[in-house]
């Protein structure tokens, strides 16, 4: 009897937890800092749709509208009154092999490498030495990019958070994330680039989303301690959204749909 009661309580708690995750509706204000650039971000979360936008007005910035059921992302471009639909949600993280590098990870044999050319010497700088001993180069293996819990916990803005880390060669992202909001939709300003290696900050959103986590704070630092990127939530405001004309999650009237990039 006691066991049955316990199971009921656990089930009820689990339902509440699930319900609270699914039912979050309201606004989340955050900021993303990259070098000297600070993007103030506003997440407007409805029952079925989500809107992410920058609130600064220096120039027209793209805004994201995400269908929370299908994952379809609509990128709205105020700068030329257009919008684009991306079925895969803008590929927020894991379309490429993990590790942040899309290329064959192993070093080509030295003989296959183009012969290094002497670099022009910038004024006042010594000339760059040529590679002295190619055979000394070891083969380097791909690092797999993983979201690793450290077990540490804290409370941020009223939400229980767990500390996670993502490591990629020479740098570490530290994340405080909660499972009490919604799966994190990273702000997609431009579709992911195609060819070069993917940076850690281009993949963290997908890793969090897969674990249904929302970050309240994250910082990316080189192993020498230098910080190069920071995300911080400033305000979480649960509220029932009013959308009388039904346009909150639609591209504005008169905008032209343009085809997705052939990426």
């Amino acid at each position, binding site marked *: 009897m006691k066991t049955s009661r316990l199971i009921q309580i656990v089930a009820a708690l689990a339902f509440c937890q699930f319900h609270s995750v699914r039912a979050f509706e309201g606004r989340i204000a955050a900021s993303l800092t990259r070098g000297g650039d600070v993007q103030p971000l506003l997440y407007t979360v409805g029952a079925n749709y989500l809107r992410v936008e920058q609130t600064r007005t220096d120039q027209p910035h793209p805004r994201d509208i995400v269908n929370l059921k299908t994952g379809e992302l609509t990128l709205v471009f105020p700068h030329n*009154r257009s919008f684009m639909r991306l079925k895969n949600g803008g590929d927020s993280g894991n379309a490429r092999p993990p590790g942040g590098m899309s290329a064959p990870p192993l070093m080509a044999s030295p003989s296959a490498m183009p012969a290094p050319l002497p670099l022009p010497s910038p004024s006042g700088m010594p000339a760059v030495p040529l590679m*002295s001993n190619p055979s000394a180069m070891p083969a380097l293996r791909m690092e797999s990019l993983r979201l690793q819990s450290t077990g540490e916990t804290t409370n941020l803005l009223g939400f229980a958070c767990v500390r996670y880390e993502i490591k990629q060669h020479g*740098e570490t992202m530290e994340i405080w994330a909660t499972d009490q909001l919604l799966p994190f939709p990273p702000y997609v300003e431009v579709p992911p680039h195609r060819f070069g290696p993917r940076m850690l900050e281009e993949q963290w959103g997908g890793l969090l989303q897969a674990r249904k986590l929302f970050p309240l704070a994250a910082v990316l630092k080189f192993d020498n301690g230098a910080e190069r990127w920071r995300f911080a939530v400033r305000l979480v405001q649960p509220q029932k959204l009013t959308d009388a004309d039904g346009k909150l999650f639609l591209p504005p009237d008169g905008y032209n749909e343009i085809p997705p990039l052939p990426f």
Partner: protein
Amino acid sequence: MKNLMKQMTRCAAVGLWLTTLNLLPPACFAQGQIDQRKPISSAPFTIRAPGSYYLTTNLTIRAGTAISVNTNNVTLDLNGFTITSTETPAASSVGILLNAAVNVTILHGFISGGVTNNGGTYGGSGFGCGIYSGNVSSPANVRVSGVSVSGCLNEGILLSEQNNSVVESCTVNTVGYYGISATSVSDSTVQNCGYIGVAAITANNCQGYGLSAYGVVARTANNCYGYSSSGHGIDADTANNCSGYSSIGNGVIATTASNCFGDNGNGGGSGVSATTAINCVGYNENSNVSGGCGIYARIATSCYSFSYNATAINATLAIGCIGFSPAGTPLNVVQNVNSIVSGY
């Protein structure tokens, strides 16, 4: 009589040769001797039969498409004339539309709208798109050469990347979305583009300016320059002899970057970000913030990098490199082979 016949035969042969090369002026064709080209003197105009066409005057449309190519095997010579749109505001009008056409060549002329960039917002009257393939996966063997496009709300020259399309010696200026997209883009320049400057499988000798996304995106980029404000200057699998600048992103981001120069202006990204960087120079300019780095690579070989306040070279393996940082970290590497730290 015999001589006359000989002369006429010679003339026809020369004419045929010149026709092949598109060198014979329209006036010669007008004499009706060997002219196979069909004149276009008004718009809208739809090409329904294969052959060679040429403009005889400037064309203007108020909306819709100026010239539609609805058939295969077409050469369209703009003949130095200009196609203009007065659609207000610019929305969906198109200069030249390729409707699933194969074997099309477009030559020598101008497509001009009045769209302007006002503080990052593109608007005004003009074209939605300059040259556009209606179904981006269909057109094959399309070549655009010597065409200048300007003042479009969306795309300048948008062709299929996958089906053997070539853009050469073209310029695009002031378009809100895409500058040029094709399988191969060479000797072309895109300026003042709102999103992506040049997108191609192979880009040679190109310059791309993409304000909010990428300057040049290509599987292989040779001798290219790319500029972007928030995206990346050059994004490539292989970047050779390229130069890229980005304010927030990476100047050059590539799987393999050889002999490249990359500059990150505001500290958020890197000058050069690559799996393998060879003989590259990376700059991370911002002296007020510590983010970003000059060269960010898995393997950096014979590279030089400068970062005033952050990390000059961040690499798993650095071979024969020089890192220089007056107030930051010159070298942050796991394994160092003959790399040195430079002072003033």
